[in-house]
Structures are given as C-alpha cells and as structure tokens.
C-alpha cells in the first residue's frame, strides 16, 4: 500500500502526459494547467529538504567532534547569516545579501573550478602518454583541436589548421558523438518507459 499508491499516481499522471503530448484538446490542456498549479504549490518544500540535510550533517559533525569539526560551525553560521541577511534586508541588488553572494560565494565558486587548469596541465605532463596507436590518435586530435582554437595556431601553421579542426569536429567527431548520443538517447527513453510502466521503482526509495 505504501508503495502502490505513489506508483499508481506516477503511472496515471504519466499516461495523462503522454496524452497531453499527442492530443491538443481542451481536456488535455486543462489537465496540464491543473498539474502546473499543483506542482508550483509543492515546489518550495523540496528546498527545505536540502537545507535540513546540510543542518543535520554538520550538526552531527560538531556533536561527534569528528576531525575538523570546527569548520562545520563556519558552514552553519554562514548559512544562517546569509539567510538572515536575505530576510532582514531583502535580496535586491545593493543589499548585504547580494554583497555576500557576489564577494564571497561567486569568487570561491569560480576559483574552485579554476584549480582544474593546474591539474590538467600537470596531468598532460605526467599522464598523457602515447602508449598505443589509439592513444596516439587521441593525442594528435587533441593537439590539432587545441591549436585550431587559438590565434597562435594559425600564426604557426597557417589557416589550414582551422580547416583541419573544422573537419575533425564535423566529420569523425560528429560521427563518434552521434553514435554515443543514439545509445544515450535510447537509454533515456528506456528508463522513462520503465518508470512509466512501473518497472523502475528505485526513485521511491527503500523499505516496504
């Protein structure tokens, strides 16, 4: 019972949506509008889940004094203070809330990913080896594409490098990505069908 009612909801709504795609009738658009209004009213509560998860994880770390637990205090204070700033002074441009986002969240988020530039450089020096014919082809294609992207590539090898890059991207690369995309696409359709027909149920979680 605890699983079958939610499952019945998914299957019923699922087939109504299949109908919505194919049948441009007033009944199907009415259904769609009803669904939209309801899903909107449910949407804010999903965020509560994420916040609860963070609070629970970090309070547990503090409570059990796991190594580096002090930093969890930083997370919790930062979270509550940012949220407080948003409620107390608003979320518009020029408020402390936006200041925190622009000068604390944004620079750190961007820098985390910028670190990867160093690691890819180090990997290209220490790990990218032409160990086999296939690996050599991969490296050659990579080097040509890298040269084809930057102005200095043309200065060194002439405009031909642009043409070769264009060809690699539009012919062998296109074929390879299409083969993979078709596989992924069929997989997606199969998974959706499994959910729709009630075969795939892992999203409902464990238990009875």
């Amino acid at each position, binding site marked *: 019972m605890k699983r079958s009612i939610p499952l019945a909801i998914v299957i019923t709504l699922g087939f109504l949506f299949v109908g919505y*795609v194919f049948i441009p009738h007033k009944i199907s*658009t009415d259904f*769609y509008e009803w*669904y*939209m209004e309801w*899903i*909107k009213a*449910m*949407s*804010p509560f*999903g*965020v509560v889940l994420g916040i609860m998860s963070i609070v629970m994880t970090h309070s547990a770390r503090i409570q059990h004094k796991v190594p580096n637990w002090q930093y969890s205090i930083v997370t919790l204070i930062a979270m509550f203070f940012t949220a407080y700033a948003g409620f107390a002074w608003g979320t518009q*441009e020029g408020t402390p809330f*936006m200041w925190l*986002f*622009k000068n604390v*969240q*944004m*620079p750190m*988020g*961007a820098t*985390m*990913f*910028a670190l990867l*530039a*160093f690691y*890819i*450089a*180090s990997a*290209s*020096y*220490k*790990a*990218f*080896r*032409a160990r086999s014919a296939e690996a050599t082809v991969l*490296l050659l294609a990579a*080097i040509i*594409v*890298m*040269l084809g*992207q*930057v*102005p*200095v*590539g*043309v*200065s060194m090898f002439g*405009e031909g490098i*642009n043409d070769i890059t*264009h060809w690699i*991207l*539009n012919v062998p*690369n*296109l074929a390879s*990505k*299409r083969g993979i*995309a078709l596989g992924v696409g069929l997989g997606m359709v199969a998974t959706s069908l499994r959910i729709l027909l009630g075969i795939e149920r892992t999203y409902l979680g464990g238990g009875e």
Partner: protein
Amino acid sequence: MNIFERLQMLDRRWIFLVVAVAIIVPLIIPFNSKTYTTEPTEKLYRIIDSFAPGPDEKPIEKDRALLLVFTHDASTMPELFPMEIAILRHCFARNIKVFTLTFLPSAAPIMDYAINTVKEEFPHVKSGEHYVNFGYKIGALMLPIILGMGEDISEAVDIDAEGRKLSSLPIMKNIKNYNEMNLIMDFSGSSAGGAWIVYARSKFGANVGAGVTAVMAADEYPYLQTGQLTGMLAGLKGAAEYEKLVEVFALKKREFSRELLKDPEYDNAITNPDIPYKFKQARIGMNAQSVAHIMIIVFILIGNIGYFITKYKEKQQG
C-alpha cells in the same frame, strides 16, 4: 639520468608555477591577435540580427524576440559571461527585444550583473520596453514554464523579476509564444539546450541556440548538423568571436559579410583604448589561451619524450 628523465621526476608545484606565469604574463602585457569566426557562431549572430527592427519600424512593434537562459553559476562564468555580455550588447545596440530567465538561484545575480554591465553603455535602453528580466523561477517549474511558453509567455512566466505582470509590459506587444520569441539561447556548463531541445523544439518548433563551456562543445556537433541547435558559442573562443561580430557589424549597423571580417583593421581591438575592457575581455583572454595551449602541447611532448627514452632504456637493459 638525462634531462628528460629528470624532468619526469619534477614536483608538480613547479608545473603549477609555469602555468601561472603562462597565464598572467599575456594578460598584463596586451597585444593584438586575430579572431577567426566559425560557422556556428556566425549562424547565431545572423539569426539574432534578423530580429532587429527595420529602419522604418518601431522597435516596440517588432514581433520577434530572443530569450537568454542563464543555466550556470559562477563556476563557469569566465567562459559564459563574456558571451552573455556580447549578445546583450548586440541586442541593445540593434533594439532587439530580449528576455532573460534562469532556473538556478545562483544565476539570478549573474543575470542582473550582465544586464547592468551592458546597460551602462546604452542609456536609451529601458526595462519593460527593450528588455525584460523574467528573473529566477524555481527549478521544479522548468518544464511547466518551457511548455507553457509554447501557448502564452505572459501567462507561463506571469511576473518578471521586478514583480510586474508580464502582460502589462509594452515589450510584450506582438509577442505571444515561440512563434514570436523565436530563439532561445541557453548558456550552460552541463546541458546544452537540453530541455529546450526536447520540449520547446520538439513540441513547438522553437529555435534553440547554445552557449556552452568548451568541455561540452565537441558533443554538440550532431545537434548542430540536424538543426536541433541553430548555432553555438563554444567556450571563451565563441565569446571572442561574438565580441568581434558585434563590433564589426552590429555597432556599425552593417549586414554580415565574410569579406569584411578578413580586414585586419578589426583585429586591433585589444590595444584600442576606445573599446571598454568588458567588451573585449574574451579576446584578451584568448591571448593567454594561446600561450597556455602551446604550454600544454609542450608538456605533452616533453612528457612523451621522457616516457619513450625510459621505455627504450628499459628495453636495452632487457
């Protein structure tokens, strides 16, 4: 032990130092370099430019509009933000109706920032007349809004970022659904056009363009060939290309022509003090990109030479 073998043992922090120098030096010593434009960028430029009102047409009457969807946070901003700036500059310079929207809370300030950055240079541009920021809509509403806009944009989006009813804004005149808002540009670091291709294009035939980080660019070629993606801006290079196209054609109100692009006159932007930094940021970045790519290629070559020498020696020793 020869030099190549010794280089193999190098602490990676020395490599990090070389990377830092290779990026910093070309950025603080500016020099001009040529920007070559590619077809996916040119296609986007041309379709966006076709949304501009004619010389005898009132911009507010125009029945074409562009939607920019910001599907990224600050982490991919260095690649995507210059694209957004360049396209907004194009729209504001040519009075093209433009909307902005995001389903990510962390993209909302980036959207404001992009609009304000470009608006400074175009004092005539007004919210509600030349552009509307639809604002941040919660992620769960992505599909309902994408599908809803196929029927009626004002109804699906309802209120803009400033809390105004969309249907009351002058810009919405002659704009009803995807028939008019004919191009959606999705800027993303993870799903080039994703849901827009599946829902807005498949069901309503809307044109979808993508501004993607370079990581994803190679994967998008099958979608470009089928026309599911009308065009694409790929990474910092795509942004640099668009910056150039806007300067050569849109600002001078000229028709696109490949011949004109070859003129070296248009490749001195980096050292031209009249062009604000924010409008050539991608092209300046491409100078550092040039040096960095050569550096990486040299790294790969040195690494491989060392590898083959070691392998050869091992073989000889049996």
